């Protein structure tokens, strides 16, 4: 297959295993491109992309923008703060106004679950979900799996534990779908109050003990505690959270094997992981960021390929 089975990237849930393989194979070529003296290809020179960010973002926004520019697309950026959204404009109106300026593809982050799905049904453009509320963050999951594939050669059969705030994490859900699609085994670990009920129905096991989870896994994906999404207290104190679910160098060294540490960022140093773990040689956090550009280039390239002239 050399074409995606979908027209929009709304979530990993809509992809199949060969889509992921195609994205990764294409990303391999783009990773070579972004390491050249001139890191740009002219493929998308007649495509215009709008980045609509209705929620704060640093890494994802920069990564998407760089990916688009490396493909030679024209890029316009939009942030909800300081825009007409605060004057009461609806999402469809905002998007359609932007599309009137001849935009072909929209990359959107939105605080509400399903916003990208809704937009894809109501406007005439390809949509890439850059995170919708606590639902999915497909490109993050793709770059996470791509980084595992790069470090361990294969995702299939690997044991991956996702640690932390699973309840509020779109990264966790997208990762669970992506890893399972590629044949990895997934466990989640965190305070019971931050593990969604019925998560077992996704085929993942809950391991409440961090040490046991780390002993089992090949890769630990450490998530941030999303205080901004918490209306109530889910655990007594940050100190207690760190003691039970934070990874430090002593804990890593006490394991019988060397595991890979990942983090989607931004890191709360000293909470979910300590500084020496974040900077250790078994941490691939900065590789994830580099791979993010290549993977997003692949996703945008493959979706743009389907846009009719």
């Amino acid at each position, binding site marked *: 297959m*050399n*074409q995606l089975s979908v027209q929009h990237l709304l979530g990993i849930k809509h992809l199949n295993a060969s889509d992921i393989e195609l994205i990764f*194979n*294409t990303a391999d*070529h783009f990773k*070579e*491109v972004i390491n*050249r*003296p*001139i*890191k*740009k*290809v*002219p*493929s*998308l020179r007649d495509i215009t992309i709008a980045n609509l960010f209705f929620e704060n973002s640093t890494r994802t926004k920069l990564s998407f923008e760089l990916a688009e520019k490396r493909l030679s697309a024209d890029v316009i950026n939009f942030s909800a703060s300081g825009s007409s959204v605060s004057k009461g404009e609806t999402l469809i109106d905002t998007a359609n106004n932007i599309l009137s300026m001849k935009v072909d593809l929209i990359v959107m982050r939105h605080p509400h679950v399903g916003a990208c799905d809704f937009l894809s049904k109501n406007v005439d453009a390809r949509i890439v979900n850059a995170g919708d509320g606590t639902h999915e963050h497909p490109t993050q999951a793709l770059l996470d799996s791509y980084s595992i594939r790069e470090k361990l050669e294969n995702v299939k059969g690997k044991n991956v534990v996702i640690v932390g705030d699973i309840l509020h994490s779109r990264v966790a859900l997208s990762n669970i779908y992506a890893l399972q699609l590629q044949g990895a085994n997934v466990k989640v670990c965190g305070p019971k109050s931050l593990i969604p009920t019925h998560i077992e129905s996704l085929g993942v096991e809950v391991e409440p003990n961090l040490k046991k989870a780390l002993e089992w896994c090949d890769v630990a994906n450490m998530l941030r505690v999303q205080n901004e999404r918490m209306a109530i207290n889910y655990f007594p104190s940050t100190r207690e959270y760190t003691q039970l679910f934070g990874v430090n160098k002593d804990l890593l060294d006490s394991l019988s094997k060397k595991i890979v540490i990942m983090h989607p960022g931004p890191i709360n140093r000293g909470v979910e992981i300590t500084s020496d773990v974040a900077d250790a040689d078994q941490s691939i956090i900065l590789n994830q960021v580099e791979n993010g550009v290549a993977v997003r280039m692949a996703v945008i*390239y493959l979706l*743009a*390929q389907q*846009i*009719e*002239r």
Partner: protein
Amino acid sequence: MYFCIPNNVWELMSQKILLSAKEIDIILNRLACQLIENHTDFSETVLIGIQPRGTYLAERLRDILQNIYEINDIQLGQLDITFYRDDFRRREIPIEANKTTIDFIVENKNVVFIDDVLYSGRSIRAALTAIQSFGRPLEIELLVLIDRRFSRHLPIQPTYLGRQVDVINEEKVLVQWQEKDGIDAVYIQNN
């Protein structure tokens, strides 16, 4: 009574051999000598095989230069032009990218592009753009095994050529290599 002939037989009948293994071998040796004539010890020259099918020809020439003419340390790269093509979003079936391997600097080097068939010239146009991402070459030459005359869309001509052929647009020139297809041969196929 050709409507009685089964499809596959018709296909075989419509395939004409243009070059045999022996003829290809003679041509490759001649091309290698022509390269030596212009580039002597290849210290300032890099060979670039155009993906996907030009890489076999490039490797063959490198082997001849190394084994027969004892020119060692030839710099050989592979260049994929997929992202530089001018028909993105214009094809029914998208083209899949191939690997680019250029582990050296092309700045101020004499670059020789190597491809199997020169047809419209559009691939070479894309390659000329693509190579700029690796620096500014001093000079670029083009070596092809088969030059399809009178079919160019762009003003591009080969510097070194194996065989010039006149084929009509419906016909396809097919180059096969021992390492990929199990045989060295060039066919003209009637589609």
